[in-house]
Protein backbone atom coordinates (compact mmCIF):
# COMPACT_ATOMS: atom_id res chain seq x y z
CA UNK A 1 0.00 0.00 0.00
CA UNK A 2 1.72 3.16 -1.19
CA UNK A 3 1.00 6.61 0.26
CA UNK A 4 -0.46 7.87 -3.02
CA UNK A 5 -1.88 4.86 -4.86
CA UNK A 6 -1.30 4.57 -8.58
CA UNK A 7 -4.58 4.17 -10.46
CA UNK A 8 -2.84 3.80 -13.82
CA UNK A 9 -4.51 5.29 -16.88
CA UNK A 10 -7.63 6.17 -14.85
CA UNK A 11 -5.74 8.17 -12.20
CA UNK A 12 -6.81 11.59 -13.47
CA UNK A 13 -10.50 10.58 -13.58
CA UNK A 14 -10.52 8.88 -10.17
CA UNK A 15 -8.60 11.67 -8.38
CA UNK A 16 -10.72 14.39 -10.01
CA UNK A 17 -13.88 12.67 -8.76
CA UNK A 18 -12.50 12.38 -5.23
CA UNK A 19 -11.24 15.98 -5.12
CA UNK A 20 -14.51 17.36 -6.51
CA UNK A 21 -16.45 15.34 -3.91
CA UNK A 22 -14.27 16.49 -1.01
CA UNK A 23 -14.43 20.09 -2.29
CA UNK A 24 -18.26 19.94 -2.46
CA UNK A 25 -18.56 18.49 1.05
CA UNK A 26 -16.10 21.04 2.47
CA UNK A 27 -17.86 23.94 0.70
CA UNK A 28 -21.20 22.93 2.20
CA UNK A 29 -19.55 22.53 5.61
CA UNK A 30 -17.92 25.98 5.53
CA UNK A 31 -21.13 27.58 4.21
CA UNK A 32 -23.07 25.99 7.08
CA UNK A 33 -20.54 27.17 9.70
CA UNK A 34 -20.53 30.66 8.16
CA UNK A 35 -24.35 30.87 8.23
CA UNK A 36 -24.40 29.54 11.80
CA UNK A 37 -22.00 32.28 12.94
CA UNK A 38 -23.97 34.93 11.04
CA UNK A 39 -27.49 34.09 12.21
CA UNK A 40 -27.10 32.60 15.67
CA UNK A 41 -25.53 35.39 17.72
Amino acid at each position, binding site marked *: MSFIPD*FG*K*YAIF*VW*TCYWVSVF*TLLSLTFLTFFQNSKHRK
Partner: protein
Amino acid sequence: MISILANPHRFLKFARFAGPIFGVIALMTICLGLWLGIWHSPEDYQQGHSVRIMYVHVPAAWNAMMAYGIMATTSLIAFIWRHPLADEVAKACALPGAAFTALALITGSLWGKTSWGTFWVWDARLTSMLVLLFLFFGYMSIWATMEDKKKAARTAGLVAMVGVINLPIIKFSVNWWNSLHQGSTLSSPNAPGLPTDMLIPLLLLTIGYSCFFGWVVINRVQNSIAISKKQRRAKENKAATVTMETL
Protein backbone atom coordinates in the same frame (compact mmCIF):
# COMPACT_ATOMS: atom_id res chain seq x y z
CA MET B 1 -42.72 11.95 14.90
CA ILE B 2 -43.58 14.55 12.23
CA SER B 3 -46.27 16.15 14.42
CA ILE B 4 -43.83 16.28 17.38
CA LEU B 5 -41.12 18.01 15.29
CA ALA B 6 -43.65 20.39 13.70
CA ASN B 7 -43.35 22.57 16.80
CA PRO B 8 -40.27 24.85 16.37
CA HIS B 9 -39.33 24.62 20.09
CA ARG B 10 -39.43 20.83 20.03
CA PHE B 11 -37.54 20.84 16.71
CA LEU B 12 -34.81 23.03 18.24
CA LYS B 13 -34.55 20.66 21.22
CA PHE B 14 -34.24 17.71 18.81
CA ALA B 15 -31.75 19.61 16.60
CA ARG B 16 -29.48 20.42 19.55
CA PHE B 17 -28.61 16.77 20.13
CA ALA B 18 -29.34 15.28 16.66
CA GLY B 19 -27.21 17.81 14.73
CA PRO B 20 -23.87 16.98 16.39
CA ILE B 21 -24.63 13.22 16.28
CA PHE B 22 -25.25 13.41 12.51
CA GLY B 23 -22.11 15.51 12.11
CA VAL B 24 -19.84 13.12 14.03
CA ILE B 25 -21.22 10.00 12.27
CA ALA B 26 -20.81 11.76 8.90
CA LEU B 27 -17.19 12.73 9.62
CA MET B 28 -16.23 9.25 10.81
CA THR B 29 -17.97 7.24 8.09
CA ILE B 30 -16.86 9.53 5.25
CA CYS B 31 -13.19 9.43 6.38
CA LEU B 32 -13.28 5.65 6.85
CA GLY B 33 -15.16 5.13 3.56
CA LEU B 34 -12.69 7.27 1.59
CA TRP B 35 -9.73 5.49 3.20
CA LEU B 36 -11.13 2.05 2.34
CA GLY B 37 -12.26 3.17 -1.12
CA ILE B 38 -8.90 4.64 -2.11
CA TRP B 39 -6.40 2.37 -0.36
CA HIS B 40 -8.06 -0.95 0.41
CA SER B 41 -10.78 -1.85 -2.10
CA PRO B 42 -9.76 -4.03 -5.04
CA GLU B 43 -9.89 -2.96 -8.68
CA ASP B 44 -12.60 -4.37 -10.93
CA TYR B 45 -11.62 -7.06 -13.43
CA GLN B 46 -13.37 -5.18 -16.27
CA GLN B 47 -13.32 -1.51 -15.25
CA GLY B 48 -9.98 -1.52 -13.45
CA HIS B 49 -9.36 1.34 -10.99
CA SER B 50 -12.14 3.49 -12.47
CA VAL B 51 -14.60 1.45 -10.38
CA ARG B 52 -13.46 3.54 -7.39
CA ILE B 53 -15.54 6.42 -8.78
CA MET B 54 -18.58 4.37 -7.69
CA TYR B 55 -17.83 5.12 -4.00
CA VAL B 56 -18.40 8.86 -4.50
CA HIS B 57 -20.86 8.74 -7.41
CA VAL B 58 -23.52 6.35 -6.04
CA PRO B 59 -23.88 8.03 -2.59
CA ALA B 60 -24.16 11.44 -4.29
CA ALA B 61 -26.90 10.21 -6.66
CA TRP B 62 -28.75 8.45 -3.83
CA ASN B 63 -28.63 11.59 -1.65
CA ALA B 64 -29.77 13.81 -4.52
CA MET B 65 -32.90 11.68 -4.91
CA MET B 66 -33.43 11.45 -1.15
CA ALA B 67 -33.13 15.25 -0.86
CA TYR B 68 -35.75 15.76 -3.54
CA GLY B 69 -38.01 13.12 -1.95
CA ILE B 70 -37.83 14.89 1.44
CA MET B 71 -38.33 18.27 -0.24
CA ALA B 72 -41.49 17.06 -2.01
CA THR B 73 -42.86 15.28 1.09
CA THR B 74 -42.35 18.26 3.39
CA SER B 75 -43.84 20.54 0.71
CA LEU B 76 -46.91 18.28 0.65
CA ILE B 77 -47.11 18.40 4.47
CA ALA B 78 -46.88 22.21 4.34
CA PHE B 79 -49.50 22.29 1.59
CA ILE B 80 -52.01 20.17 3.55
CA TRP B 81 -51.40 21.29 7.15
CA ARG B 82 -49.95 24.72 6.32
CA HIS B 83 -47.10 24.29 8.73
CA PRO B 84 -44.33 26.83 8.05
CA LEU B 85 -41.59 24.59 9.54
CA ALA B 86 -42.26 22.00 6.83
CA ASP B 87 -41.61 24.70 4.22
CA GLU B 88 -38.36 25.59 5.99
CA VAL B 89 -37.25 21.93 5.90
CA ALA B 90 -38.09 21.74 2.18
CA LYS B 91 -36.18 24.97 1.55
CA ALA B 92 -33.20 23.68 3.58
CA CYS B 93 -33.01 20.51 1.43
CA ALA B 94 -32.72 22.40 -1.87
CA LEU B 95 -29.10 23.61 -1.79
CA PRO B 96 -27.45 20.38 -0.53
CA GLY B 97 -29.77 18.45 -2.87
CA ALA B 98 -28.61 20.52 -5.85
CA ALA B 99 -24.97 20.10 -4.76
CA PHE B 100 -25.33 16.30 -4.57
CA THR B 101 -27.09 16.22 -7.97
CA ALA B 102 -24.31 18.26 -9.57
CA LEU B 103 -21.75 15.99 -7.88
CA ALA B 104 -23.51 12.87 -9.20
CA LEU B 105 -23.55 14.36 -12.72
CA ILE B 106 -19.87 15.38 -12.65
CA THR B 107 -18.56 12.11 -11.19
CA GLY B 108 -20.93 10.13 -13.44
CA SER B 109 -19.68 12.01 -16.46
CA LEU B 110 -16.04 11.21 -15.58
CA TRP B 111 -16.94 7.56 -14.93
CA GLY B 112 -18.79 7.55 -18.27
CA LYS B 113 -15.65 8.70 -20.07
CA THR B 114 -13.68 5.75 -18.67
CA SER B 115 -16.45 3.16 -19.25
CA TRP B 116 -18.33 4.33 -22.35
CA GLY B 117 -15.69 6.56 -23.94
CA THR B 118 -17.83 9.69 -23.70
CA PHE B 119 -18.55 12.30 -21.00
CA TRP B 120 -22.22 12.65 -21.89
CA VAL B 121 -25.02 10.92 -23.80
CA TRP B 122 -28.68 11.95 -23.89
CA ASP B 123 -29.56 8.73 -22.13
CA ALA B 124 -32.75 8.48 -20.00
CA ARG B 125 -30.89 8.14 -16.67
CA LEU B 126 -28.47 11.01 -17.34
CA THR B 127 -31.14 13.29 -18.78
CA SER B 128 -33.56 12.68 -15.88
CA MET B 129 -30.75 13.49 -13.41
CA LEU B 130 -30.11 16.74 -15.32
CA VAL B 131 -33.85 17.50 -15.07
CA LEU B 132 -33.56 16.92 -11.30
CA LEU B 133 -30.80 19.54 -11.12
CA PHE B 134 -33.00 22.02 -13.02
CA LEU B 135 -35.89 21.27 -10.65
CA PHE B 136 -33.65 22.13 -7.68
CA PHE B 137 -32.53 25.35 -9.43
CA GLY B 138 -36.15 26.23 -10.24
CA TYR B 139 -37.21 25.63 -6.64
CA MET B 140 -34.37 27.79 -5.27
CA SER B 141 -34.93 30.60 -7.78
CA ILE B 142 -38.61 30.84 -6.78
CA TRP B 143 -37.60 31.33 -3.13
CA ALA B 144 -34.91 33.83 -4.18
CA THR B 145 -37.04 35.96 -6.49
CA MET B 146 -40.52 36.14 -4.90
CA GLU B 147 -40.78 38.78 -2.21
CA ASP B 148 -43.93 37.45 -0.55
CA LYS B 149 -42.54 34.45 1.35
CA LYS B 150 -45.96 32.79 1.77
CA LYS B 151 -46.57 32.90 -1.99
CA ALA B 152 -43.00 31.72 -2.63
CA ALA B 153 -43.54 28.75 -0.31
CA ARG B 154 -46.78 27.76 -2.08
CA THR B 155 -45.31 28.13 -5.59
CA ALA B 156 -42.02 26.41 -4.77
CA GLY B 157 -43.95 23.66 -2.96
CA LEU B 158 -46.04 23.07 -6.08
CA VAL B 159 -42.88 22.79 -8.20
CA ALA B 160 -41.43 20.30 -5.71
CA MET B 161 -44.60 18.19 -5.68
CA VAL B 162 -45.07 18.16 -9.46
CA GLY B 163 -41.37 17.42 -10.00
CA VAL B 164 -41.51 14.33 -7.79
CA ILE B 165 -42.71 12.42 -10.86
CA ASN B 166 -39.07 12.59 -11.98
CA LEU B 167 -37.89 10.31 -9.12
CA PRO B 168 -39.46 7.04 -10.39
CA ILE B 169 -38.30 8.03 -13.89
CA ILE B 170 -34.70 8.27 -12.63
CA LYS B 171 -34.97 5.02 -10.67
CA PHE B 172 -36.61 2.89 -13.38
CA SER B 173 -35.20 4.60 -16.49
CA VAL B 174 -32.58 1.85 -16.84
CA ASN B 175 -35.36 -0.78 -16.92
CA TRP B 176 -37.88 1.09 -19.07
CA TRP B 177 -35.54 2.21 -21.85
CA ASN B 178 -32.35 0.99 -23.46
CA SER B 179 -29.58 2.66 -21.54
CA LEU B 180 -25.83 2.83 -21.44
CA HIS B 181 -26.13 3.20 -17.68
CA GLN B 182 -25.94 -0.07 -15.77
CA GLY B 183 -28.96 -1.40 -13.88
CA SER B 184 -29.34 -1.59 -10.12
CA THR B 185 -26.56 -3.57 -8.44
CA LEU B 186 -27.70 -3.51 -4.83
CA SER B 187 -31.51 -3.49 -4.76
CA SER B 188 -32.25 -5.92 -7.61
CA PRO B 189 -32.52 -9.61 -6.54
CA ASN B 190 -31.17 -10.79 -9.93
CA ALA B 191 -28.14 -8.50 -9.84
CA PRO B 192 -24.72 -10.10 -9.38
CA GLY B 193 -24.06 -8.05 -6.25
CA LEU B 194 -20.83 -6.55 -4.96
CA PRO B 195 -17.96 -8.25 -3.15
CA THR B 196 -17.69 -7.27 0.53
CA ASP B 197 -14.44 -5.32 -0.08
CA MET B 198 -16.36 -2.99 -2.39
CA LEU B 199 -19.69 -3.07 -0.57
CA ILE B 200 -18.31 -1.81 2.78
CA PRO B 201 -16.79 1.50 1.52
CA LEU B 202 -19.88 2.06 -0.63
CA LEU B 203 -22.24 1.59 2.33
CA LEU B 204 -20.01 3.65 4.65
CA LEU B 205 -19.95 6.56 2.21
CA THR B 206 -23.69 6.29 1.60
CA ILE B 207 -24.35 6.46 5.37
CA GLY B 208 -21.77 9.26 5.69
CA TYR B 209 -23.27 11.37 2.88
CA SER B 210 -26.79 10.85 4.29
CA CYS B 211 -25.72 11.90 7.80
CA PHE B 212 -23.86 14.88 6.33
CA PHE B 213 -27.03 15.86 4.46
CA GLY B 214 -28.98 15.51 7.74
CA TRP B 215 -26.43 17.71 9.55
CA VAL B 216 -26.59 20.43 6.87
CA VAL B 217 -30.42 20.42 6.77
CA ILE B 218 -30.78 20.55 10.57
CA ASN B 219 -28.36 23.50 10.75
CA ARG B 220 -30.11 25.34 7.92
CA VAL B 221 -33.51 24.92 9.58
CA GLN B 222 -32.07 26.14 12.90
CA ASN B 223 -30.78 29.22 11.07
CA SER B 224 -34.18 29.82 9.43
CA ILE B 225 -35.86 29.69 12.85
CA ALA B 226 -33.25 32.12 14.22
CA ILE B 227 -33.86 34.53 11.29
CA SER B 228 -37.66 34.34 11.79
CA LYS B 229 -37.24 35.10 15.51
CA LYS B 230 -35.01 38.10 14.70
CA GLN B 231 -37.52 39.43 12.13
CA ARG B 232 -40.43 39.00 14.57
CA ARG B 233 -38.51 40.83 17.30
CA ALA B 234 -37.63 43.67 14.88
CA LYS B 235 -41.32 43.97 13.89
CA GLU B 236 -42.41 44.04 17.54
CA ASN B 237 -39.82 46.71 18.36
CA LYS B 238 -40.96 48.79 15.37
CA ALA B 239 -44.61 48.47 16.41
CA ALA B 240 -43.71 49.44 19.98
CA THR B 241 -41.79 52.51 18.74
CA VAL B 242 -44.75 53.60 16.56
CA THR B 243 -47.15 53.16 19.51
CA MET B 244 -44.86 55.21 21.78
CA GLU B 245 -44.61 57.96 19.14
CA THR B 246 -48.39 58.15 18.69
CA LEU B 247 -48.87 58.41 22.46
